[in-house]
Structure formats: structure tokens, C-alpha cells
């Protein structure tokens, strides 16, 4: 499925999936992002780490314009997402997003959660939407839960449904905003396992996370942010194992 959606997108593989240049974002007088240059290549898994308030979630939310950048540019597959002429809804169907708080639709069943956007945004017929939804539910190991309501599921199951919901749009890339931070420790593993499987299938992923083990094992690149800037980035074993900056060392000494 992943290779199919990759092949259908009319983008050359040399172009970065996400390219952020000189991005600044302020909330009133609070400068959250202070000139970020950042990119994610096609098929790459980039983990963004850093202390809370470092701006990593804001950076991720600027990629699909849930936050409006103050200045700078955000290109997704070569298309400027900040351009008012860009069809934002159409772009967003290509960018899957998973939230810390899951944000499943509580009034719909699991199947309803997975088919709603397919029908409303991708204009798929009901039968096709259900077929795609069932395939993705099976993928996250929750095929038997299609008629459950979100409130009847554990946090880990809800987050896997949320991942399946995003995958049902056949996105070219996935954004994860601290996907395991709201979970009980014993439920984290199942969610990470689904994400690892996605990475193995070659999905382009940007993951804001506190899971250093995941970053080390699955990440192609780790980006450390602090105070609204990218402090350092590189291969996981370099950034996590042999950090060059004092701020990175100080952060890692607290979380590892």
C-alpha cells in the first residue's frame, strides 16, 4: 500500500518530503521558533527531541499548518504550504497526523472514525472506505474492534486507531506529536511497535518524542531542539551517544 501511494504521487524522489526554511513562529511576544532550517527526506524517519517548551511540537504543527508560521517557508513535496493559493485540505490528506491526546471522534465507532475523512475529504465511496479502514485496522492489530466506541478502548488501542485513521488517507508521510506521552507505560510498547512497522515499510516519518530508545533504534536522524532553535542533528548514535553541544548533553543526562 505504501509503495502504491508513493508511486502515485507525482514527485521525484530527490525532492525532500518536508523542507522548512528560516521558520519563525511567535505567540504574541513569545518567540517559540527562532529561524528553523529543517528537512525530512522521502522515506526518512526523523525524530525531534528536546525539553518541553523547545518548540518541537510547534515545528511539527507548522508542517500541516495547524499553526500559522509567522515568517519563513514550509515546503511539502515541493509545494509551499504557507501559500494562500495552496489547496490546504488536499495537501493535508497527504500528511497523516497523530496527536498526543489521540483526538479520536468520540461520537463515532472505530470504523466511523476511519471512514469519515475518506468519504468527506477523499470522496471515496462507502464500500471502498470501509475496505481501506478494515485493512488498516488489521495492520494495527485491532480488526476485532471496528464497532467499539473510543471510550471503550485503552489509551494504547485508541492511539493505534488514530494511526490507522491517518493511514486510511494513504498519506505520503506521517507526523507524530508525542504519540506515547499520554499513555500508561505498559501500553507504550504496542504503539511503538506499529510505528516501527511503518518505518520498516519505508514511510516518511517526523516524530516528536521523548522515547530515546525508539529514536535510537528506528530514527535515521535525530534533531535536538532547545529554545526555538535546532541545536544539533545527526545520526542517532552520534547525537544520543556522543553529543557535541553542552545543551544536548545536559538534556540527555536528564532523560537517559
Amino acid at each position, binding site marked *: 500500500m505504501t509503495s502504491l501511494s508513493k508511486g502515485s504521487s507525482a514527485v521525484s524522489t530527490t525532492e525532500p518530503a518536508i523542507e522548512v526554511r528560516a521558520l519563525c513562529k511567535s505567540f504574541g511576544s513569545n518567540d517559540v521558533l527562532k529561524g528553523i532550517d529543517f528537512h525530512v527526506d522521502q522515506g526518512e524517519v526523523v525524530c525531534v527531541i528536546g525539553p518541553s517548551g523547545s518548540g518541537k511540537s510547534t515545528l511539527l504543527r507548522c508542517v*500541516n499548518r*495547524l499553526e500559522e508560521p509567522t515568517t519563513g517557508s514550509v515546503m511539502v513535496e515541493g509545494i509551499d504550504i504557507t501559500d494562500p493559493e495552496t489547496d490546504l485540505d488536499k*495537501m493535508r490528506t497527504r500528511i497523516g*497526523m497523530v496527536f498526543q491526546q489521540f*483526538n479520536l*471522534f468520540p461520537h463515532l465507532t472505530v470504523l466511523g472514525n476511519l471512514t*469519515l*475523512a475518506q468519504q*468527506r475529504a477523499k470522496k471515496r465511496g462507502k464500500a471502498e472506505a470501509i475496505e481501506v479502514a478494515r485493512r488498516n485496522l488489521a495492520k494495527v492489530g485491532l480488526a476485532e474492534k471496528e464497532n467499539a466506541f473510543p471510550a*471503550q478502548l485503552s489509551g494504547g488501542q485508541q492511539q493505534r486507531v488514530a494511526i490507522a485513521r491517518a493511514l486510511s488517507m494513504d498519506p505520503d508521510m506521517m507526523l507524530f506529536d508525542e504519540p506515547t506521552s499520554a499513555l500508561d507505560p505498559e501500553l507504550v510498547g504496542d504503539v511503538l511497535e506499529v510505528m516501527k512497522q511503518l518505518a520498516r515499510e519505508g514511510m516518511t516519518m517526523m516524530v516528536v518524542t521523548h522515547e530515546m530508545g525508539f529514536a535510537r533504534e528506528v530514527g535515521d536522524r535525530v534533531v535536538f531542539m532547545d529554545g526555538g532553535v535546532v541545536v544539533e542533528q545527526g545520526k542517532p548514535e552520534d547525537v544520543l551517544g556522543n553529543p557535541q553541544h553542552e545543551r544536548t548533553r545536559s538534556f540527555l543526562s536528564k532523560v537517559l
Partner: protein
Amino acid sequence: MKPSTRRRLFQGVLYAVFVIVILVVAFLADWDAIRTNFFNLEVAAATFPEIVVIAAKNTVIYTVIAFIGGLILGLILALMKLSPVLPYRWLATGYIELFRGLPALLVIFGFAYAIPIAFQWRPPGGSVGAGLIGLIVVSAAYIAETIRAGIEAVPKGQVEAARSLGINPTWTMVSVVLPQAFRIITPPLTNELVILIKDTSLLFIAGLALGERELTTFARDSLTSLANATPLVVASLLYLVITLPLTQLVAKLERHNKRGR
């Protein structure tokens, strides 16, 4: 005196006062007058079946019309009040503040008499129709505020999730926000409905033909023609027959909806 003894003594006094008041009322009341004037079975029988097949039926019909109309207009006003377009917000706010501040009776009177006189235009449905428009106009102001509060109570993450999936703002509102908002406001909305049932009694001011009378008007007419208060009691019981199952039904619905919360 020990505190526990004092407490028991105090409770004893409370019970004694209660019993004495009941006894005094029972002795002083003119039970014969009460029975013949309020619970007169012959008079009650004389009001049937019209009080049910005309009056109670009309009360229900007027309530349903006014509630549906109020919901539609209220929803439009709530969306206007949340609109990014400033003049819409002004208009909605002005409307809501105006009609929440006026007596419903005055508005109904206005639609039934003032507007027809001023513009030579009769609202559809004659005087009842005019009165109902007044009722809709007033109830919409209250319902709009309830719906707006419900929409704002839906967590922001719900809109973000829908928008991040590429669902446009209209569909996000229709299939994600509003269904959750209406679940949240089911209790206050029921309250509006119960208030509306009772407010249909204000329609009398528009002038109702014999077959158009609702419960209160019908009971009042019977009261004068039969010179007996029993029709008021019958009407009261019928109001309770309408409102009590409704509040029970909504409590049931609420329990059912909890599943999807």
C-alpha cells in the same frame, strides 16, 4: 446537656412543628369547598374529551413547531455569533441580547398585532401562526446561546484532528463538532423545551379560535363558563403528563449517549 441530646431535641422540635402545621391546615381548610371547586369529577368529565383531543394536542403541536423553528434559527444565530465575519457577530449578539431582554408576551403581541397593522402583512397561519413566530423568535435567542456554548465546549483537538485529515471547515462543523455539541447540550436543551411547553400558554394573547386553543386557554375558558376551578387542575395534570415523560426520556438518552463520549 450533651451535644447529642441537644441535637436530638432540636430534631424533635422540627418534627413537632411539622405535625402541628399539617394538623392546623387540615382543621382550618374548608375541604368541602376545595373538593367541589378544584376536584369536582362532574366538571372534570365535562371538559373531556376536548381538553385532550383539542387543547393538549394543540399544546404539543405548538411546542413542536416552536422548538423546531427555534432550533433552526438558534443554530443559524449560534454559527453567526462564532463567525469570523465581524458584522455577523454583531448582528447575532444584538439579536440575542434584544430578545432575551424582552418579555415573550410583548414579542408575541408585536407579531400578532403590531406588524400586521404597520405593514399590512399577515403572518402565515393567522393569529396562531403570528404568535408562533413570536415564540420562535424569542426561543431562538436562548437556544442560540445554548448551542454556542455547546460548540465551544467541544475540545479544540477534535477540530484539529478533522482539519488535519483534510476535512473542510463545513464538514468539520457538520460531522464532528455539532454532533458532539448537541450531546453536551442535551440537558439544557430539554430545559428550553420544557420552558417552551409552558410558554405556549402565552399564545392566548394572539387570539385563538375555538379549535386553536391550547391547554391554559382552554382551562381558563372552562373555568369561566363552568364557574369552577377543576379545569385548571385537569390542565395542570395534563401538563405534567407531557413534561414528565419528556424529562425521563432525555435522562435515558443521556445515559445512552455516555457510551459515545
